[in-house]
């Protein structure tokens, strides 16, 4: 599902140079980890899409693990999911398996200290810049961490995972359903093709990665072949190439394309796509713009509450 890399929330104002966002695929998990640590929410962390993964701490530090459930251990003790913990110098954090979901995030107090390039610490693989020397992390790499901020919190603490707080009650469990807003070429597909798009379970093929998720299912074809002029696209855009197999553009996608677009995954559900595993099934649900904004507000509320609770808890601990 892609490389382990340094990512922050992304690079958003460089599209006019052909530079896409990069950044954490599950931005909610990265933000939650940073909030737990008292970091700036945009502090860089490590996106880990595969296990096993091992990391040695070069000094005492507080870290957090969020995102996918992962069997994690440090200093002989197990780390629960969505958890903040203290590491001692030379202790080894070992991530053994990731039984469900697709990627987890390791954040550290102060954040990973790599240079800011074009406004972000995210790794831009295609351009080979940003993050850790513009490339995936490899065994032997040494990452510097910035000093903890004044608001840093430490000590063992867990947080309610996003998928529980943001669970959608009317959506059947086991499937990942994502809300989408129809895009410019939706009407170029007839009713039968549109139905296929809505009603099918789309399998995430092994060719899926940070550039795009290539889906497999029935061929969804427009009424007549469409060749569009190259136009800007953003992560979440679902393109239909001539073979009728949808591609969801993800964080390392190109900033422009010419394939017809049937719909765009809403920003508030991109983390759900990010956590869907290879071989699993996705379904699409049509959503209006206003409802998409409401969904973004719901995510903001979760993170706002988390921020407030962490501060309150730190004050409580400070009083003792």
């Amino acid at each position, binding site marked *: 599902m892609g490389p382990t890399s340094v990512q922050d929330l992304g690079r*958003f*104002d*460089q*599209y*006019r*140079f*052909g*530079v*896409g966002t990069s950044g954490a695929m599950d931005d909610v998990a990265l933000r939650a980890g940073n909030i737990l640590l008292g970091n700036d929410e945009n502090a860089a962390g490590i996106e880990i899409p595969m296990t096993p993964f091992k990391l040695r701490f070069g000094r005492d530090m507080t870290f957090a693990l969020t995102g996918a459930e992962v069997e994690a251990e440090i200093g002989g003790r197990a780390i629960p999911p969505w958890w903040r913990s203290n590491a001692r110098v030379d202790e080894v954090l070992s991530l053994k398996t990731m039984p469900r979901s697709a990627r987890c995030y390791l954040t550290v107090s102060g954040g990973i200290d790599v240079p800011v*390039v*074009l406004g972000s610490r995210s790794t*831009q693989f*295609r*351009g*080979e*810049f*940003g993050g850790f020397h513009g490339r995936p992390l490899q065994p032997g790499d040494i990452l510097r961490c910035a000093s903890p901020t004044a608001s840093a919190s430490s000590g063992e603490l867990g947080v309610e995972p996003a998928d529980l707080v943001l669970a959608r009650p009317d959506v059947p469990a086991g499937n990942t359903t994502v809300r*989408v*807003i129809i*895009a*410019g070429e939706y009407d170029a597909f007839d009713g039968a093709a549109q139905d296929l798009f809505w009603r099918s379970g789309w399998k995430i093929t092994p*060719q899926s990665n940070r*550039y795009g998720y290539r889906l497999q299912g029935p061929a969804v074809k427009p009424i007549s*072949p469409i*060749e*569009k*002029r*190259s*136009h*800007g*696209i*953003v*992560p*979440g*855009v679902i393109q239909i*190439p*001539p*073979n009728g197999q949808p591609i969801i553009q993800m964080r390392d996608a*190109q*900033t*422009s*394309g*010419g*394939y017809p*677009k049937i719909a*765009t*995954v*809403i*920003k508030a559900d991109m983390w759900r796509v990010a956590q869907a595993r290879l071989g699993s099934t996705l379904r699409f649900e049509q959503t209006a*713009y206003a409802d*998409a*904004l409401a969904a*973004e507000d719901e995510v903001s509320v979760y993170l706002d509450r988390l921020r407030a609770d962490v501060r309150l808890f730190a004050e409580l601990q400070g009083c003792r």
Partner: protein
Amino acid sequence: MTTSDRPRISLLGTTALLFEAPGTFDLPHQQRIWTLATTAAKWSGIREAIPLITNLMLTFETPPRDPNFLISALNDAWDEAQELPIGGREIRLPVTYGGEIGSSLQAVADHCGMSIDDVVSIHAAPLYTVFALGSHPGYCYLGGMDPRISMPRRQTPLQRSAGGSVSIGGSQTGVSASPGPSGWHAIGHTTWTFFDPSWTTPAALAPGDIIRFEIERVIR
């Protein structure tokens, strides 16, 4: 392709808006898009105005609660948009046509019913205008290609095409700055550097610049 007289405006989720101008793919239309981009970039709530090929994507700083105001402002601004004559530099780009990187040269020749040499001379003849930057860091979309060497994009995009490759997609041509996936047909390559994040402006070229391809070599 837009066939009506009015622009097509559509949403890209809640992150961006796409404005597609009616009319042909030519420099005057593109100059009006550049004007529209300059105007819209100053509106509150707009993060970037990104011109592509006779179209404009506006990314949002914060998504508007009601996009209809933005849509009507865009329509009004388009009606008033004059052709912006951006002055640009003229750059000569030496190209090796064909070979390992330009591996689709024969396919394009076959598709268009002409020889490799014809494709090369038709491709290298015009002065191209940089219409837009997009796709990947530093990539330039060029206007002015002769439609005789058009070839539709691939059925399935190739997972990896080389950096510096010169390619054709539909009726457009472009030059890539780095390797990566592509649905276009690579017909040659250049060794020039198009992008460096340490430069003050990271991209070497800008909309309005003019490129002349020089045939350095043809590998059959």
